[in-house]
Structure formats: C-alpha cells, structure tokens
C-alpha cells in the first residue's frame, strides 16, 4: 500500500510514495542513494546502518519508513558535510581508524552523536559512545584514539 512520506534528508526536504513498512534503511539506500548507510546484522545489534533521527543516533534497520514522515534524518552523507562530521572523518583518516571500512560510517555517526553533546569525552565515555557499533578489524583502540584526536582538534 503506497503512501506519500516526506521528511528532511541531510537538510533537504524529500518525499516519495512507497510502502511505509519498508525499512528506512532500504529507502535511504535504494531511493535516495545514501549507500554510506551500511547493512550489517539487520537487527539493531551492529550499528553499521546508524543514522541521526531528529538529532539522535538510531539504527534504521529497525525503523519503518513511515516513522520518518515529517521527521529529520541525517546520514553519513550529510554528517560529513558538517564541521564536526568533517573533523571526525579527517581524524579517522589521520589516526588510522579504518581497516576494511564497513563499520566506519556508523562509527563516525556514533562519534558525532557523542561529540555533539560531549565535546571532551573521557576514554570510558568514548567506549560507551561506540558500544553499539561493532568493528571486526581494528580492535577499537585506533578508533578511540581517533575520536580523541577529533575532540582535541575541536578545542
């Protein structure tokens, strides 16, 4: 049953006609080309698909597209254009945070979600901040270091 759904995506008003029960994850990737939104576990455990929903990190694999109607969504494609997002992306590159890269868009979103509220987090706070994002390559230390670097560069 197609229904019109309108929302703000990365600062722009968008709308589409679709089944509101499609996963927001699929709508973002397939209808809007936001392929930085990665599908990992498909059940909210891994954080790879994380996006900002009304300014808060969520996993759109668990959200039907209809729930985004009239709301604000920001994917990695939008976050990387912000000052904070760009700073995190650069720090990840400089700090060697990336190996295979699959978890990284979600990790950047998690770092963004953390640093927007807490610009100077402790190690524990950083680890809590990315605790819903699974990385199979790095062992996390370089990601934590890179988030610290991003925080330092924001001072």
């Amino acid at each position: 049953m197609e229904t019109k759904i309108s929302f703000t995506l990365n600062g722009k008003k968008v709308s589409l006609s679709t089944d509101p029960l499609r996963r927001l994850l699929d709508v973002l990737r397939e209808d809007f080309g936001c392929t930085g939104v990665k599908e990992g576990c498909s059940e909210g455990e891994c954080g790879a698909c994380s996006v900002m929903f009304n300014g808060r990190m969520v996993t759109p694999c668990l959200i039907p597209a209809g729930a985004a109607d009239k709301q604000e969504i920001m994917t990695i494609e939008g976050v990387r254009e912000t000052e904070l997002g760009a700073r995190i992306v650069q720090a990840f590159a400089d700090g060697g945070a990336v190996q295979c890269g699959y978890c990284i868009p979600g990790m950047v979103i998690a770092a963004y979600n953390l640093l927007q509220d807490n610009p100077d987090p402790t190690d524990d706070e950083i680890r809590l901040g990315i605790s819903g994002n699974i990385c199979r390559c790095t062992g996390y230390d370089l990601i934590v270091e890179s988030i610290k670097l991003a925080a330092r560069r924001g001072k």
Partner: protein
Amino acid sequence: MEEVKCYMPETLEEALEIKSRVNAIVLAGGSDLMVSNKRTIGLTPVFDRPVMIVRNLPELKKIYINDKGECCIGSGCTSAEIAASKLCPWHLRQAANRMGAIGLRNSATIGGNIANASPKGDTPGPLYLLDARVKLQSIHGTREVPVADFIVKFKTIDLHEDEMITEVIVPYSEKDFDYVFWHKVGTRKANAISKITVSMALKFNADDTVKDFRLSATATGSKTNRSRDVENIIIGKKISTELIEEVVQAYDKVISPRAMPEFRREATRRMIRRFFGECARHAEGKVIETYDGYRMPGAIEL
C-alpha cells in the same frame, strides 16, 4: 507476499479512533516488531495484520509528576529519554540506561518493552518493584492496571483490541527508601539481554526495624518475580543473619529460572545477602553497589 495496510496517525485521538475500527498492530520504536517480522537483507518485514505507526505521537512523549506526586511517563518515551529524565525513578533510569546500546535506546519505548512481556525485558523489574501501573486508553475510556497484572504471563498481556498503553504511572521512587540496589548481569555491557537483573529497595523505621523492603528479579522465570509474602518476612523486624537467610530461601522458591538455573539462583542469593549486609551496617550513601567499588561506567547517579 501481500502488503498489509499501514496507518500513520498524527494525534492520539486519531490513533484511538483507528484502533476502534481496526485491530492494528501498534508499532512504536519497532525494535521488537521489526526484528520478529523481518525477512532478510533488503526485504520489507511482513506483518499478518495492519500496522499503525505511533513512534512520533506527541501525546505519548510526556514525562511529568501528577498531583499525587507520582511519576507519569508517556508510553512512547524512549529508554534514552527515561534515562535522562531526573523526574523518573532511579531504578527505572538504571534499567533504561542499560537496554541495548545508544541507537537502540533512542528507539525502544517503555510501552513497547512492557507490551512485549518478555521475562528478560529490563523495565518490568523496576516497575514491579515500585508498584507501577499502566494507563490503557480506548475511545470508550481509560483504565489503569498494575504492570504486574497487565503482564499476564510470557508474551501475554491484558490489552483489549481497541486499547493502547498511553502512560506508565510510577507511585514510588528512590526517595521513599534509605537504600536502593539495581544490578543487571549481562555478557557484555552493551547490547546484552539480561541473564538476571535484581532490583531492591529498603527503608528503616527510627528503631532500626525494617519499614519497607522490596525485591524483584527478571530473567528468573516466565515473568518478572516479586512476592510481597517474602518481603513481609523481614518487614517490621530488625535485620539478622537468620532473617536474611529466611528471605533468601523463600525467594529461591519464588523464582523458577529454566536455563542455567543454579547460576541464576546463586547470583540472586548473593545479591540479596550483599544488599541486606550493607543495609544492616548502615553503609554510607543510598546506592548499594554489587561488590566493593564496582560501578558501571556511565551508571546513573542519584
């Protein structure tokens, strides 16, 4: 696969009107429903009945203290919102703060957690402990039911087809007690479904007898376990080693864990003994930690 109708009401009134006509599945955060109905990568979940999305209804998002001093929480409040609200009781904030991980906590609602009626769900433990009620609303009116009765048994709730949970009302908080305890045993700190979670609270009389004591445990049977009979063993009396053991043994008969029963029973016994021990020696501070100096990073302060 046939698509079902999906309703997207913008007000509670509209939602209740839809519910009066259609037995639609209420979808709030979606964190249980989207998983239980999922198919595979890239495919839309399949539902066997129409669905009504209520995630953004503003009427379900309020947290306030009513004129009786009870904390009222809209059913659509997320774990993150509850954890962040100083109006919410401490036990509930702790539980909300340890559900899933950050992204999940921004979706999972308290209404969904109660309606899901999983014995491993995190909010029922504190809600049983603090005598919480759910407010159930339909176009025909409103009724209030204690959470402990609303959750009938494993995955079964006392909800009529035309009703929604609109509010959760919590009459007690940590302010009513001298000592509080909450501990969730999970295999990880984040995204851990409870292996066992114990909530406790105790208040003394001026003469050092116990005025009130409460104890609930989740993941120890087909629903959350609390027994006023067990609590009454020590209420009105002074804490003693014998009475503690009486409570421990009586509570052991209340719980009925199936998987890893001996681990769950022993963990429960130890937590109860530790809590009473710390209360009896009038430990400093209101929060009793699980063991000396153990504090979960990010735990909610009083």
